């Protein structure tokens, strides 16, 4: 079993939190993990990505080879497309629908969606909308993660473990909201996947 995942977004959007939850989940399953993060220069409102590799065998490279990723999880729609060269033929792309527009030449959003819809396997989720409805706008990244659950090799208690590990310090309330956000993302995915 192996799962190669690319996390994408814009600096400050919380992709490292998604990475951490998946990382803890893998630890809970006793799986091997390598997670390459981007630190430094590229964090000031620039494009950021993280490579996450999970396997029951030993993992060699910290980076996913092009054409080999099973899944792209993106908290921003245009960013999800930047990493298409890495996505495998039958890989899934799960992305937030809400654009983060901090550049002068951001493309027409409808064209972005239609590029995404050209892929055989994709999910576009209004994670910001779902998170605001739950009155926790900050958890939109976790909503996106929720929508990717069907494509990840974990059980619900692995996620619970991960969320607890990551947010435990901030109190029970925050842990609960994030678990709800995760569930909401997962439910959304169920409704459209039928």
């Amino acid at each position, binding site marked *: 079993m192996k799962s190669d995942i690319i996390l994408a977004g*814009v600096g400050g959007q919380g992709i490292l939190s998604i990475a951490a939850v998946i990382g803890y989940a893998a630890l809970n399953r006793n799986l091997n*993990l*390598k*997670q390459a993060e981007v630190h430094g220069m590229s964090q000031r409102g620039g494009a950021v990505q993280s490579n996450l590799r999970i396997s029951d065998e030993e993992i060699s490279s910290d980076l996913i080879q092009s054409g080999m990723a099973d899944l792209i999880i993106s908290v921003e729609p245009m960013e999800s497309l930047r990493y298409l*060269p890495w996505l495998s033929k039958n890989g899934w792309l799960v992305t937030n629908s809400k654009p983060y527009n901090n550049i*002068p030449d951001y493309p027409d959003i409808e064209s972005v969606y239609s590029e995404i819809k050209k892929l055989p396997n994709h999910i576009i989720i209004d994670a910001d909308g779902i998170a605001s409805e739950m009155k926790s706008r900050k958890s939109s990244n976790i909503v996106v993660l929720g929508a990717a659950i069907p494509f990840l090799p974990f059980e619900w208690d692995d996620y619970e473990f991960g969320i607890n590990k990551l947010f435990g310090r901030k109190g029970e309330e925050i842990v609960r909201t994030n678990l709800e956000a995760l569930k909401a993302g997962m439910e959304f995915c169920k409704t459209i996947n039928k």
Partner: protein
Amino acid sequence: MKNKLLLGDEALAQGVLDAGLSGCYAYPGTPSTEIMEYIQNSKLAIERNVHRSWSTNEKTAMEAALGMSYAGKRAMVSMKHVGLNVASDAFINSAITGVNGGLIVIVADDPSMHSSQNEQDSRFYGKFALVPIFEPSNQQEAYDMAYEAFDLSEKYQVPVMIRITTRLAHSRSGVQTKSVREMNKSRLPGDMRQFILLPAIARKRYKGLLSNQEHFTSESENSHYNHIIEGSNKDLGIIACGLANNYLHESLKRTSLDYPILKISQYPVPVNMIRKFASSCKKLLILEEGYPIVEESLTGLLNMEYKVSGRLDGSLPLDGELNSDHVSRALGIELPASREVPSLVANRPPTLCPGCGHTDVFLALNKALATYGKGRVFSDIGCYTLGALDPLNAIDTCVDMGASVTMAVGAADAGLIPAVAMIGDSTFTHSGMTGLLDAVVKNSPITLIISDNATTAMTGGQNSAGTGSLEKICLGLGVDREHLIMMTPLRKNHDKNIDIMKKELEYNGVSVIIAQRECVQTAARDKRIAAALKLKKVANT
């Protein structure tokens, strides 16, 4: 022992800590910053009172670490690759003095220049200084090497280098840790003249270092980090250094190719091992992350007898980070099918944060300089370097830390008057102060702007050595009180700030403008920490 999920940087930090570290010295720099940050937050380091505060620059860090080693304790210094340029005088000479307590020099290189001005390969420095080098290929090796390097250092009384690159520094994986060792007691060097590099002593020390080379090589020959993996197809032998091993195994996984492999992770290169390996294969392919240092040493000047390929003959690109695609191509392995990036995807470069004081400095400066024309703003390295991009287009140079001040001085010498230097507070104390003294001594017609956000922002908001004392430092260096001006770079002060700048640009001597406004990121983080502390206090009562 415990299984921890650690970045390569953190694995190194945990390794030196468990091996009995007494002091870590460093100046921040991507991708090395997390080494010190991990030690600063480590319970063990706090319990043991391990030295763990930032130094003013890499040279002061290197020298302080050497001082701790002199006093008998185990010390480590960490920096990014270009930091070693700054520390190189101390580094090269520390190989001549030798050490007393173990001394580890960790250098993090940045091939592909993710956040650097160049991609120099620190193994050259290690070779230049004639010291042993470790080059871990994964997080576990990073930990193990850091744990063992003090022993090697103390065995031969020599500083030991550990070289990593961005990918490993910033990638997380499970690490098995070992038992925690005692720290050294302080004791003076056995040879009390060892550290006095007068020519007569230095010559002796240097001969000693030279005669140790064969021991260092035999350590490499016998190192468990260097080994041969047998293969049935001897048409090609592959030598893979450090991280390159991972890309090699990743590429081979998808094939049935069975070439012999020599893994190298400890230097000087294990000569006999290579000789034996090479004689059993028809050709060699060398894979290394960085410059072709091993390849070059094998091809030699003439490259007549033996077919060696790698970065030099174009089998692999000469520049940039290695990856599995490059390695697959070099081995003739077909790449997996992949898609293109759709053409509508726009670049998204990093930008100055909304509300950043640097922006207001640039907006005023652009206006103040309008009458003089373009091409006279010498800048430096930090968040404010992003002022080079649209729409500000406010700076003309960024070379190395501190160069803004001295390049402005040189340009003014050439008649480019007024010349402006634009520097951040941390870069100013790192290496701008000495340049300012040059300017003061000859009263150069330059205007120096120190954009003081009270932190080292670019690397994540570490303490900045000059916070609260920049004014005093400038006065102490001899800047005229009349031409040392404080300003607050806020939108509402825009017009006033333009006037101040205009006036100082007209002055035919050294002016310093200190523009003070806290970094919004650091301010927000400090607020969060304060709130969390309050929450904890409430919970405890």
